[in-house]
């Protein structure tokens, strides 16, 4: 089977499992919504919330990323599913791409809800040109997060203490995404007097990040899960 067909099969399988188990809709979504409300309690000021809304949305996304990555590999590790895939000679690049795609789709769904929450709860402004920037930023940032998440998820899959190890490994790596996506989102919301056009250089950083880790993942995922 070609890499793209394997990727599609793995992604469809993962998404179907998520759709049926309803963990994302019933647990991860409410969790990230709650985080947004908690931020509002902690910061307790409409003006501050408006200014930092972009950062809060991305922080909530990254917290949820940990949960989603752990879910994504928990289903592979239980019953030795990942071992079976490997023994069956499935191309690891296909597995990497497939799991990244399914993570990407789940994260996008989550972010749509988070941004809607931000618009409602934090009262941010979003104009037409801001929306174009926001969509581009979300797509490129999420691609980067999905690649990195899959890469480090595969690395820690099956290891002792992976629940605690994953955030330790992932947080420093996703720092560039947090910085860039926050700045681009701020520009899209025109908070802090930033204009929309100032956000585009940050989207370029996000795209580079996604490309670097997409390529890095394709090259190294095989040796990470082959044991």
């Amino acid at each position, binding site marked *: 089977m070609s890499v793209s067909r394997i990727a599609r099969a793995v992604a469809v399988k993962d998404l179907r499992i998520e759709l049926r188990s309803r963990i994302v809709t019933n647990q991860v979504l409410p969790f990230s919504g709650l985080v947004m409300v908690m931020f509002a309690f902690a910061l307790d000021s409409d003006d501050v919330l408006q200014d930092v809304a972009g950062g809060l949305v991305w922080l909530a996304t990254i917290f949820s990323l940990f949960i989603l990555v752990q879910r994504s590999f928990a289903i592979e590790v239980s019953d030795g599913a990942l071992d079976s895939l490997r023994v069956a000679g499935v191309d690891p690049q296909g597995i990497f791409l497939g799991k990244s795609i399914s993570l990407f789709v789940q994260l996008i769904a989550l972010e749509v809800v988070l941004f809607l929450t931000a618009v409602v709860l934090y009262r941010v402004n979003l104009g037409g040109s801001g929306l174009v920037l926001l969509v581009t930023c979300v797509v490129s940032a999420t691609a980067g997060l999905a690649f990195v998440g899959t*890469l480090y998820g595969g*690395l*820690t899959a099956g*290891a*002792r*203490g992976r629940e605690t*190890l994953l955030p*330790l*490994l992932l*947080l*420093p*790596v996703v*720092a*560039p995404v947090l*910085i*860039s996506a926050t*700045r681009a989102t701020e520009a899209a919301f025109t908070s802090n007097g930033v204009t929309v056009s*100032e956000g585009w*250089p*940050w989207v370029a*950083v996000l795209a*580079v*990040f996604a490309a*670097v*880790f997409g390529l*890095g993942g394709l090259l*190294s995922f095989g*040796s*990470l899960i*082959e*044991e």
Partner: protein
Amino acid sequence: MTTTELPAIKGVGTQATRLYGVLALIALGWVLVGGLFFTPEDVVQGDAVRIMYVHVPTAWTAYLAFIVTGVASACWLLGKKHSMGFDRVAGASAEVGVAFMALTLISGSLWGRITWGTFWVWDPRLTTTAFLFVTYLGYLAVRGLGGSPHQRARRSSVVALLAVLEIPLVHFSVVLWRSLHQEASVLSPDGDIKMDGIMLFTLLFGVFGFSVLFAWLVSHRQRIMAMHDAQRASALEVAMADRLQEASS
């Protein structure tokens, strides 16, 4: 009741490590005496400048250590034989690097408190250094995941190479972040310091001393790791020999 025993080992020192050790002791002895007594106070910073004699060499050594880790990991991964020596050097070097980076961060923030009036500023270089520290803590955690030495080497070499990818990205985005968000800090960390001859000499001696200390620590540590791996590998044989003896007695 072990019957098969590992050969008795007296230590992990060799002629070469003894030489490094003595060299490091002499150099660091000079840094201690020269840094505290012989070098003059700085016009602006006063006695606080003496922290530099430790801070700069430890920072340099930590960066050197992480470069060694990256190169050794690449050698392990790309080498045909996957020689475990590379993996042990990578691991030992990262351990020493993390320790030295911690010293750098501590001495730097103490200096900052005296000179800038604050322990920490969100300067790009400081921020990148902090990320480097956390990244290699993660690397060490991956090494501690368990499994066979080969598994450990494979996982950790990939993580080390990913760190090499990640660090320029972190640095670049942090630089961009600060440059867009805040005017340059009141005092840049490398503010113009006109350096007296003896100060420069002591500083360079410090860099030399800490580099030799690094070599000394890494060569000992990697040999200890080799012994540890050998002991683990022989544990099964030892256990089997014990059971056999139990059965026959």
